[in-house]
């Protein structure tokens, strides 16, 4: 077995272990998230359709009220019975307009639907982040013969997933720039120092986040139990 295949197998196992909780979670939660997103979307579409229908009726009433207004100016020349008819029609139209205005102002997407949409959006963002992580891992695994493979793998694990690709690219670029004047051994020493310092900073940060999540879960459990 060559060292490349050993490296590839090792990194595949590491990746599966690292991603196992996410995959399990995704298998159970993802169908619910998709369902929730479809539901919130259909509710939002229905509300928008209703709003559009009300808006159409509102503009039609407005147009008729405008026509009546022009007739009102000519009222003086009409017989008294016709005058009364036009005035009654005008006041009925104004009442209808007010009714529709009040109805359209009340027409909003329910709070529960909005909350569900934001939760679904958050979960979608999480999955997208995981997908980015997966893609960057694939790129990393493709460079299995690189001198800095294990160091890169370590950085991939601790760096923020939004920037892991860019950070690895920056390090690779600077490593090449440095290795020209000082030689590869000194450049590698610099690379190792960079990884060591980055891991020190980022790993504690990850642990802090886990500790915060743990504390919140602990508080919630205590709250539920009523202690």
């Amino acid at each position: 077995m060559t060292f490349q295949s050993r490296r590839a197998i090792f990194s595949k196992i590491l990746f599966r272990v690292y991603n196992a909780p996410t995959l399990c979670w995704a298998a159970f939660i993802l169908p619910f998230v998709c369902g929730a997103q479809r539901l919130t979307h259909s509710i939002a579409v229905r509300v928008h359709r209703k709003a559009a229908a009300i808006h159409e009726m509102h503009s039609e009433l407005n147009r008729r009220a405008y026509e009546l207004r022009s007739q009102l100016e000519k009222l003086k020349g009409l017989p008294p019975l016709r005058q009364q008819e036009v005035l009654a029609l005008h006041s009925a139209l104004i009442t209808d307009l007010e009714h529709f205005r009040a109805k359209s102002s009340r027409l909003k997407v329910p709070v529960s639907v909005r909350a569900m949409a934001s939760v679904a959006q958050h979960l979608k963002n999480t999955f997208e982040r995981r997908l980015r992580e997966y893609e960057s891992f694939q790129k990393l695994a493709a460079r299995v013969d690189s001198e800095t493979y294990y160091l890169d793998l370590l950085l991939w694990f601790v760096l923020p997933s939004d920037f892991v690709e860019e950070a690895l690219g920056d390090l690779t670029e600077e490593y090449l720039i440095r290795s020209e004047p000082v030689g590869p051994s000194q450049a590698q020493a610099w690379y190792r120092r960079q990884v060591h310092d980055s891991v020190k900073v980022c790993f504690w940060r990850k642990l802090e986040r886990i500790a915060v999540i743990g504390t919140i879960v602990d508080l919630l459990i205590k709250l539920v139990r009523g202690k």
Partner: protein
Amino acid sequence: MGQRDHIGEFEQLVLLAILRLKGDAYGMKIRREIEERAGRSTSIGALYLTLDRLQTKGFITSVLGEATEQRGGRAKRYFTINPSGREMLRASLKALHKMSEGLAIAGVA
């Protein structure tokens, strides 16, 4: 006072480096700029954590640039400072200036 109302010393340095580099502010350049000008050696991990935080606070924005062979086929991410970030930096430097005003600290104007 919330977390969005102030920035730390390293965040100041990062924002100033982005301003100095203008359109060429990406990870490696920012790190080298801080190292050369401020004489402060910093790791790429610490830098990206700070950039991540500043972006979450809305002080900077970033766009993906071109991928080069030199970077192992990975793209650069260019950072620019937002008006809110500029304002925060101005307020932070002003506060620092006010605090040090009139103090006789050797080597500082």
